[in-house]
């Protein structure tokens, strides 16, 4: 049991940071640059750990210093629940709901930290993070619930044995559509927006606090993509050696991230915060709701169209 926990945590940590390296290289190549080393995120993280953590005078110190720990801690807990490899240390009925809640904690930590930082940039960044969170959470949660209803279970180990993109493809599209917003990169880096509000909630953070806050964000990106991989691509159906499972899982997540986060990031400018709800409450939400209603009404259109066996 203890080995499984350690393996899951180390894998999540390494994979999350490696994923950022891959994303940066993909973006760099689409901008005619060479880009940093794939391990650059590791260097940055360990360098920040060795620096001093400053707390501004005007903050509420408890809240300000708690936010990074909350962010990274919640994500490590989520890493134990999302089935990253064959063995998942923490399994229980309804763990999908727990993961969805846990994935909302890093943004909430950013909101707390930004508000507590006493900087006007942090305050604006926190307000924007709220808008971003409610924009993408709704289509994402509806899509996840659609898949769960199709599986007849809220348990990830059950859902993950079927690739639900073949059953509820519109919900899968909606969930993948929310990926760049969850990763908070262009065009959805509104809360950071370094040219507008000087990286918003992060502005007063330094040293280990900054490292943990960013680690929470990186882990969230990885686990979010992993959750989509588990639910819609059925990565739990493979029963190979754990290392092979890790590789399959990571390749699917890396492809998702490269196409839907890095490529999107390289081809758009930053959107305005007022447009966020328009982006996410229109097409993605409608797609997810259509699939939910069709499934509940008993219409198996993929079966009718392509003759999938389905569920």
């Amino acid at each position, binding site marked *: 049991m203890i080995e499984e926990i350690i393996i899951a945590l180390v894998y999540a940590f390494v994979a999350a940071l490696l994923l950022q390296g891959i994303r940066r290289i993909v*973006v760099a190549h*689409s*901008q*005619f*640059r060479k880009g940093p080393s794939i391990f650059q995120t590791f260097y940055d993280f360990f360098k920040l750990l060795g620096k001093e953590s400053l707390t501004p005078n005007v903050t509420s110190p408890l809240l300000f210093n708690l936010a990074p720990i909350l962010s990274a801690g919640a994500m490590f807990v989520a890493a134990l629940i999302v089935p990253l490899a064959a063995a998942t240390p923490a399994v229980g009925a309804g763990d999908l709901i727990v993961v969805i809640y846990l994935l909302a904690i890093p943004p909430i930590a950013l909101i707390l930290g930004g508000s507590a930082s006493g900087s*006007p*940039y942090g*305050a*604006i960044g926190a*307000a924007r993070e709220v808008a971003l969170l409610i924009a993408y959470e709704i289509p994402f949660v509806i899509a996840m619930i659609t898949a769960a209803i199709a599986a007849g279970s809220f348990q990830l180990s059950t859902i993950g044995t079927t690739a639900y993109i073949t059953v509820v493809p519109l919900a899968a599209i909606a969930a993948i559509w929310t990926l760049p917003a969850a990763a908070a990169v*262009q*065009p959805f*880096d*509104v809360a950071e*927006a*370094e*040219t*507008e*509000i*000087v990286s918003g909630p992060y502005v007063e953070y330094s040293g280990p606090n900054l490292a943990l806050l960013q680690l929470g964000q990186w882990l969230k990106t990885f686990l979010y993509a992993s959750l989509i991989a588990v639910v819609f691509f059925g990565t739990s159906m493979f029963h190979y050696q754990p290392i092979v499972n890790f590789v399959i899982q990571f390749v699917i997540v890396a492809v998702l991230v490269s196409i839907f986060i890095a490529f999107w990031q*390289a*081809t*758009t*400018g*930053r*959107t*305005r*915060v*007022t*447009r966020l709800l328009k982006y996410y409450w229109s097409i993605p939400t409608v797609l997810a709701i259509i699939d939910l209603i069709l499934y509940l009404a008993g219409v198996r259109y993929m079966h009718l169209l392509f003759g999938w066996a389905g569920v």
Partner: protein
Amino acid sequence: MEDTNERGFARLKVPIGPSHPALEEPARFIFEVEGEKVIDVDYEIGYNHRSIERLCQERPFPKVVYLVERICGICSHAHPLCHVERVEDIADIEVPERARYIRTIYAELERIHSHMLWAGVAGEEIGYHTLFMYTWREREKVMDLLELLCGNRVMYGCNVIGGVKWNIAEEHVSSALSVLGYLDTVADKVTKAVLKDSSIAERGKGIGCLSKEDAIRLGAVGPNARASGVAEDTRVMCKYAAYGDFDFDPQTAQGGDVVAQAIVRLRELKQSIWLCKELFANLPDGPIQVEYDEIPAGRSVGRVEAPRGELIHYAETNGTNFFERIKIRAPTLANIPSYVPKFLGCQVADIPIIAASIDPCFSCTDRMVIVKDGRRRLVGKRELTAGRI
């Protein structure tokens, strides 16, 4: 810092600058915001005064040319061009035709790289890094061409009183023409990308509007004024250097928003490339410099069209080897007042792109400010000329 209005919305004072990622140079804006909406703006300059006007009075004429060249890193040809024309005006020096053409070539190449720089910076401000990377990569071609012609990427050291220093070799003309042909395709590509891209349209349409009346009332100059429909271009009006030999119109657009600013600059980019090709094709033969005797006492004021707009130089000599007074009005100073109507009512997210849209160059325009007993005041001519070293 915080205050609430009668409707209970929190008001925040958001300082932008003097050190801020969106501003390359020191200027300070204080925005009063309600949520994401800007309701008031105030600006302060005076962080980077380098007393160039004073230093100009302390060195002999030929050295002053190199000093005014260093006012701005981007308009490093417009300043000395305007300056030497003032001295030539006072001393009645007739510049050879080839020198006038070479000066114009540098001026237009400078406009090309400056407008490409603007397009990149604008992309960066809206978080569109790919546009930034692309235009700046292609901009290197112009910089390489300038290096080929004079040996320097910036600070060309080209202007001297009575002509130019570097001649253009015959074999450089063909390579210059091929670079210009390539840049023409780049300009088309960027224009297409800027006009078609939905994320640029979303961030630029109707952002930072300036009406034609406001542009005239606030004395906007250059592409900033032309984007509001004011068809004024110093190159066309004053016909300095070799511009009188070519027939072209000022490029204008309507509305003054970010997209209009982009359209004006991209059209000028095309125009400058065309003008450069014409200049290279019609380069006359002859000497590039004339001798001159003494610079008599006199005064002259004149304008050139820098990439950022109308640049005014005033020079006053007194018969010695030194200037009595040099006065420089950089285009950004004339454009700063047009910020106020552009900023009012905009969103916080639009501040950087509006700030960048007039292509500001704060250090070139800076004034000396004395802060004494909590009051700020600008330094005038009397203090500057008094106590000469």
